[in-house]
């Protein structure tokens, strides 16, 4: 059999699939067959490589050449040029925001250069369906080490040394959590993986489950050994069908190989994991609500204490961590707590996976040491804001978080620094916004979300957030008063103090943090009935400059509501009553004759 000369890794993460990865792979395989290369070129589908907006992506080894934005037609050219003639195909290489083409191995591209991958170490490297590839990357070595050589107390000690804190949002020290669960009394205990990642803009858990499911299986098994559990549940969002499919497959193969099930690795330790699927309720990301949901009830939170470590699933001691937290466990066990603690800064150890989204050139998943600055993350790794626009703010922590304005861009990202700025790391979503985004609109947007997702159990969250939303709606429609701003603040503070669970306790954060940093925008809406970002529909008009308009009719043809009228070569008019401010006309006008104004 001929030796493999090249390995082609194709990203089969959700984003790349949505961009046409499947047809790219098929076309690649067909072309390889056509040139009789199928035995010397190995094609591997792997998990999310992170650079989502560049998909579909493939990397050709041994050189590590990174090709982006492929389609089924241009793959043929890559086979003919790169594989057969040894010539790199420049047109599909990574192109920076300023247009420069980088002919460099993947790891030297700006997007990847500053990353240190621990939780996502196998994403973009292994085939998620192959347990052998996982093992080849030291998979299940940590489990073996734990079962053969480490006492549960030793595992906890290493976790404490590592300084790892829960990556789901609250940031509770993981070692301590495991210790509580271990010490809790009970002959039956449970281990749960919270894979109900619901924070808008955060998708690292989906990527890890899809790209490296075995790491979660391994870590949950280590957790079960440590705290003394025999049964585990993973609660996955139904919105992530691919993650469910790949995780089920990982469970099956792990059982076949003796890493899961009865008598793991020939010892008397037995543990198995079952998948429970969510059904569309954001509040189920809250651990006690999630437990209720597994029990077959409505996903409403329970009063804490007692904490799940004492009284969790079916009243038994339960250890619950999220996907990313678990993904850090095997490397910590293998290399030691001190190794992990060398990354990051005091109080925020290790690395964190962030999801860059919104108005940023390189969207996607990045794993960086804690303490990196927002500037490095957004400008260097993310490639800055597109279309020459100015960065305005970064929203972190989803509906529980807040906005960091541009002037704090040199702040290092840690649990404490973000808290001081009135936001949180949360699960790691970073939504970048530019000058065209209205902060009052953003606050309203998050409140709409909370109002819909509130489980309705406690009054401050159910009714309070609704009242806040009504006020925000008034403000964005130009009906707000200065008293409204006071009320908004007061209500927000009350809701945070009196809500039952984390959802309500943090729901007013997006409003309060935008009020703190963008007070002038709120005032402009209330006092001048003006939206500085020209985003709020009721406060914005679209106008045509009669001097500049040449009457090309492009705007009239694209207007979905026929609000634009005029004859050919004559200046056109917009009927403000009919106009929905969708902005389609702005995009097609080549003469700069159409603009938004407020008021």
């Amino acid at each position: 059999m001929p030796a493999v000369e090249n390995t082609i890794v194709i990203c089969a993460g959700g984003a790349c699939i949505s961009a046409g990865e499947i047809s790219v792979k098929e076309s690649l395989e067909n072309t390889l067959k056509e040139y009789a290369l199928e035995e010397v070129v190995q094609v591997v589908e792997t998990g999310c490589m992170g650079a989502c907006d560049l998909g579909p992506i493939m990397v050709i080894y041994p050189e590590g050449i990174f090709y982006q934005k492929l389609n089924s037609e241009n793959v043929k050219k890559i086979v003919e040029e790169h594989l057969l003639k040894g010539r790199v195909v420049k047109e599909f290489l990574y192109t920076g925001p300023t247009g420069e083409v980088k002919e460099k191995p993947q790891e030297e591209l700006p997007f990847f250069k500053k990353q240190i991958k621990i939780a996502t170490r196998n994403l973009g490297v292994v085939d998620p369906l192959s347990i052998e590839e996982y093992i080849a990357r030291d998979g299940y070595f940590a489990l073996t080490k734990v079962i053969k050589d480490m006492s549960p107390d030793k595992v906890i000690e290493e976790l404490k040394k590592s300084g790892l804190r829960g990556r789901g949002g609250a940031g509770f020290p993981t070692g301590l959590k495991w210790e509580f669960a271990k010490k809790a009394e009970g002959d039956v205990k449970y281990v749960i993986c919270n894979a109900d990642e619901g924070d808008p803009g955060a998708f690292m858990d989906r990527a890890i489950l899809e790209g490296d499911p075995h790491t979660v299986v391994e870590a949950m098994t280590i957790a079960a050994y440590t705290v003394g559990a025999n049964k585990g549940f993973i609660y996955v969002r139904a919105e992530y069908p691919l993650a469910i499919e790949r995780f089920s497959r990982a469970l099956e193969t792990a059982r076949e190989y003796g890493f899961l099930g009865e008598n793991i690795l020939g010892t008397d330790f037995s543990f198995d994991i079952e998948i429970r699927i969510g059904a569309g309720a954001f509040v189920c990301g809250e651990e006690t609500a999630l437990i209720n949901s597994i029990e077959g009830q409505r996903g409403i939170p329970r009063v804490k204490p007692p904490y799940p470590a004492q009284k969790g699933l079916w009243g038994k001691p339960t250890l619950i961590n999220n996907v990313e937290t678990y993904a850090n466990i095997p490397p910590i066990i293998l290399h030691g707590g001190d190794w992990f603690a060398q990354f990051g800064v005091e109080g925020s150890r290790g690395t964190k996976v962030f999801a860059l989204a919104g108005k940023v050139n390189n969207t996607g998943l990045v794993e960086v040491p804690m303490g990196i600055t927002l500037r490095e993350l957004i400008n260097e790794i993310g490639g800055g804001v597109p279309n020459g626009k100015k960065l305005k703010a970064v929203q972190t922590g989803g509906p529980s978080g807040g906005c960091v304005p541009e002037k704090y861009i040199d702040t290092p990202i840690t649990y404490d620094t973000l808290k001081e700025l009135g936001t949180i790391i949360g699960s790691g979503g970073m939504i970048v916004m530019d000058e065209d985004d209205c902060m009052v609109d953003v606050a309203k947007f998050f409140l709409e979300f909370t109002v819909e997702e509130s489980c309705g159990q406690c009054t401050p969250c159910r009714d309070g957030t609704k009242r806040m939303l009504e006020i925000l709606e008034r403000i964005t429609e130009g009906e707000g008063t200065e008293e409204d701003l006071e009320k908004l603040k007061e209500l927000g503070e009350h809701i945070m103090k009196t809500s039952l669970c984390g959802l309500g306790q943090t729901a007013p954060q997006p409003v309060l943090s935008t009020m703190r940093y963008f007070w002038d925008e709120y005032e402009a809406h209330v006092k001048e009935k003006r939206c500085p970002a020209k985003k709020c529909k009721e406060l914005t008009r679209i106008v045509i400059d009669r001097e500049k308009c040449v009457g090309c009719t492009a705007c009239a043809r694209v207007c979905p509501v026929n609000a634009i009228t005029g004859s050919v070569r004559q200046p056109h008019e917009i009927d403000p009553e009919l106009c929905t401010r969708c902005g389609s006309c702005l995009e097609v006008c080549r003469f700069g004759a159409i603009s938004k104004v407020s008021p």
Partner: protein
Amino acid sequence: MSFEEVRNTIKEIYEKVNSESLDERDNLINILHAIQEYYGNYIPLEAAEVLKELTGKPLSKIYEVLTFYTMFSTNKRGKYVIRVCKSLPCHVTGGAAVLESLKDALEIDYGQTTQDGLFTLEESSCLGLCGVSPVMLINDEAYGNLTPEKVKEIIEEIKEKERSGVK
């Protein structure tokens, strides 16, 4: 369908899901998912009656769960359920215009089904594909980097496929 048919079907699903579970205890949400999948995107109300008999739970408890979760529906949904992500990354990258064009193309509002029973339009929380926002999910397939034009093409394509398909 007769109640007897529903009863037998639900019983079969109930037993199958429970036999695949490692835990003999409550598995209601997985069972409801399986029922919904069987009926194609909805759960007939009779199913709740049968589950009452099978589980011994009061009907109110079963309704409580059935109505709490947004993914379950007791109304018949279309062959294609379109879930549009309404999270902030999609919002700031032009999600609103995409939504409008979807409503326009389908001539329905949220929560409604087209007259031909083909499409149901629903909102969704974050689909986790923020890197290619705005995004929508049609059944299990994700569509990213949407624009109003692209949305119309996708809908047309499905309609075309249906027109030229079997029957």
